């Protein structure tokens, strides 16, 4: 009888250790997956409309400086106001690139919000690139980012 209860205790000890060990194996799997999925800068999930468009203290959104372009002059500055700006080859865009054959009619949208300036591709043929990476969803611009639309490169500055 004593021997039996000894072995019950031994089994319980083994199960306790196994349980805790497996629990940490589980956590390790999740941490490993999380590390693998770490991507380039995360966007913010604060929805932040630039609602105080007419307020004086609204932050200035910054500007786009032309780095190289078949159309615009190098070094030309495009000051962003608080309204969204569309860029493309077509005549209805706020910023028109009619000499840039690689730009689509309606190419990209620059949207200044409270938490920064966001870029969205409007379904262009050749894509919109930030620092050489093609946009798949809207992204926030950081100062110094190079935005490529067609054959035109802009640098975003505050």
């Amino acid at each position, binding site marked *: 009888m004593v021997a*039996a*209860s000894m*072995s*019950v205790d031994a*089994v*319980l*000890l083994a*199960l*306790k250790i*196994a*349980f*805790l060990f*497996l*629990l*940490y*194996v*589980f*956590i390790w*799997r*999740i*941490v490993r*997956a*999380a590390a693998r*999925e770490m991507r380039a800068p*995360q*966007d*913010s*999930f*604060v*929805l*932040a*409309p630039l*609602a*105080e468009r007419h307020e004086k203290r609204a932050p200035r959104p910054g500007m786009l400086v032309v780095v190289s372009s078949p159309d615009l002059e190098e070094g030309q500055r495009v000051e962003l106001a608080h309204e969204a700006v569309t860029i493309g080859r077509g005549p209805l865009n706020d910023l028109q690139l009619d000499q840039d054959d690689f730009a689509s009619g309606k190419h990209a949208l620059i949207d200044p919000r*409270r*938490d920064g300036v966001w870029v969205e591709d409007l379904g262009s043929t050749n894509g919109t690139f930030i620092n050489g990476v093609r946009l*798949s*969803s*809207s992204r926030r611009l950081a100062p110094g980012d190079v935005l490529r639309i067609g054959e035109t490169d802009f640098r975003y500055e505050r």
Partner: protein
Amino acid sequence: MSARTRELAILVLVGLITMTGFASVYIARQNEISAGSLSYAGFFFALYLVAHFVGRLTVPDADPYLLPMAALLTGVGLTEIYRLNPTDALRQGLWVVIGVAGFSATLIALRHDFRRLESYKYLFGLSALALLFLPALPKIGRSINGARLWVHVGSLQFQPGELGKIAMIVFLAAYLHSKQEVLALGRLKDFGPLLAIWGCAMLVLVATHDLGSALLFFGIFLAILYLATSRLLYVGVGMTLFLVGAAGVYETTAHVRSRVTIWLHPWTTQPVPCPTRGGLLMQRQECESFQLVKSLYSIAQGGFSGTGLGKGTFTLTNGKLLIPDLNTDFIFSALAQELGLVGVAALLLVLMFFVVRGFNIALSVDDGFSKLAAAGLTFGFALQTFIIIGGILRLIPLTGITLPFISYGGSSVVANFILLAGLLLVSQRANEAR
């Protein structure tokens, strides 16, 4: 490997963990080695397999780790509930089945586009109120431990506030998403419907003495409001209102004053006459703080690696439970005794990763309603966990509320499974766009 295959692989691991835990409880209870626990683990695994296959059909690209984490937490909770009271475990098992059914129904019903919920926002707001108000109705409402939170239909007992929480989050996300631009301007009239519905909810909760849920709803409201408008001012005003409200409630309600006293001074030096639940007066060292003090002793008893599942001490020599509500509000201290610091730290990590992945989903989805809903659901989960574990560890005053997925309580389990389905739907949307 596809997302769902990874999910399946890790579900097998969860099945193994649950089997080990249950075997431990079973063997400790019978005091002999047997394989009787295998059928239980098999049943549990089959249940999650069903959830997995529904996921495979409806949300093939969604996050693969949320379901296994939920499965692990329910598995551990169910094991501990079985250890404390096998009859409760049977009932809880049934609730998990209903939970998985609710999970599957939500996924199937909303698999095409859950964003159509956005157009029913007032319906959600009003049903949240109705659900919160249900227990106050005379025929079906029932109060337990001074709080009137339960609804009885036949022998079924349900706490509708848990579902009300989810309806409220959907309402807040939809309303704030459609009105975010004007709300950020801060004109009072835009806040009308928001404050009306939310204010009613707070009134109902305070009137039914459900302070834990009141705190939860308040926190969720502020969080979603901040996410929608990014105005810290609102959070500041909200916190100020909270402090004023808390001070007011403290002054006027004896119930709340005693909670704060218990929190700050749980230990008394002299035995005092103390009414117990049976209506008897007993000389006890700790009276009102009895539950909390015993729970702290239980946690301390666990030490570094715990007593092992099934070997903790929860009953007096006469067989009475040492800590009231051990398998609902206080399940964390039961687990802390049997799994030790190592084990509960692991559980806290799992809860934390659930929250991290939830926020990740909110980050990666690109439309406003989905973002707010995912972030709101996740925040509610996180805050609820914090309120109950913080209360048990004496970090904040204790308010009774369930620990998501782990505690005994049907409505909580069902509501959390629906929450999980919601997160998976948003995750699917974020991943298929990519």
